[in-house]
C-alpha cells in the first residue's frame, strides 16, 4: 500500500538510523508483510479477484494509495526540516523565507501540475528531485 522506500536506494541508509525503528517492530509482524495483508483486507479491488474487473473500485484504490503516499512523504519531509531547525543546522527565519520563495515559484506552475494530472506525461514530482 506504501512503496518500500522513499529515498532512491542508491543512498545507503546507515544502520544506526534504522536501528530504532527495527527494534520497535522486532516483536511484531514484518511491516512489509503486514501492509500486504492489510491491503487485501481493506482495498476494494481484491474483492473482485477472479471476477470482471471494476474500474471504479480500482480508481478508488489507486487514489487512496496515492494520497497515503503523499501524506506519509509530506509528514516525513516536515519532520526532517523541523529536526534541522532543532539541531540549528538551518535557521527558522531562513526556512520560512525559502518556503515563501518556493510557494511563489510553484504557484506560477500550478497549471503545469494540473495538466500533468490529466496527462500523467511526466513522473512526479515535477519541480524537484532528491536524486541528483
Amino acid at each position, binding site marked *: 500500500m506504501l512503496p518500500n522506500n522513499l529515498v532512491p536506494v542508491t*543512498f545507503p*541508509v546507515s544502520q544506526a538510523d534504522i536501528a530504532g*525503528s527495527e527494534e520497535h517492530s522486532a516483536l511484531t509482524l514484518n511491516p512489509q508483510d503486514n501492509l500486504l495483508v492489510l491491503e487485501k483486507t481493506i482495498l476494494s479491488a481484491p474483492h473482485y479477484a477472479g471476477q470482471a474487473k471494476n474500474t*471504479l473500485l480500482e480508481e478508488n484504490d489507486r487514489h487512496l494509495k496515492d494520497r497515503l503516499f*503523499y501524506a506519509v512523504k509530506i509528514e516525513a519531509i516536515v519532520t526532517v526540516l523541523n529536526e534541522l531547525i532543532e539541531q540549528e543546522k538551518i535557521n527558522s527565519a531562513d526556512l520560512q523565507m525559502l518556503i515563501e520563495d518556493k510557494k511563489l515559484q510553484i504557484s506560477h506552475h500550478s497549471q503545469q501540475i494540473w495538466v500533468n*494530472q490529466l496527462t500523467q506525461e511526466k513522473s512526479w514530482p515535477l519541480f524537484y528531485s532528491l536524486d541528483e
Partner: protein
Amino acid sequence: MPMSELQFPPIQTAAPSDDTASDNTLLRENIAALVQIKNENIARIAQGQINITAALVEQKWHNRHQIYPYRVKDEIYGAVLSEIISHHPRLKTEVLARLEAVYQKLRDEEAQTLSRTRALLENSYKTPHL
C-alpha cells in the same frame, strides 16, 4: 459480505507492551471501519444502478481535485528540502538517510494502526504545516 469472510490479521501475542496492545485495538477498530467503507462502496456499485463509465469520469475528476493540494504541497516542501541539500552538500547524505529512516518509521506505524488510511477515507486527514 458475511462477517466470516473478513480477514483480520493475527493478534500479536509476543509479550505486547501497552503501546502494542493499544495499537492492536486501534488497528482492529480501524480495519472494521475501513471494511465497512469498502463494503458500502462495493454494494453501491454492485447494485447495478449506476453507469460505471459515467461514474468513473466523475470520480476521476473528484479525485484530481482532492489530490491536487497534496501534489502542490509535496512540490513546495520537496523543493525546499532539495534546495537546502544543494546549499549544504555536507548534509546531503545525512538528511536523505534521515528522511528514509523517518519514512520507514511512519510506514511501520501505518502498518500497525492504519490511522492515516482511515482518516483519508473519512476525509479528516490534514497534512502538517511548517
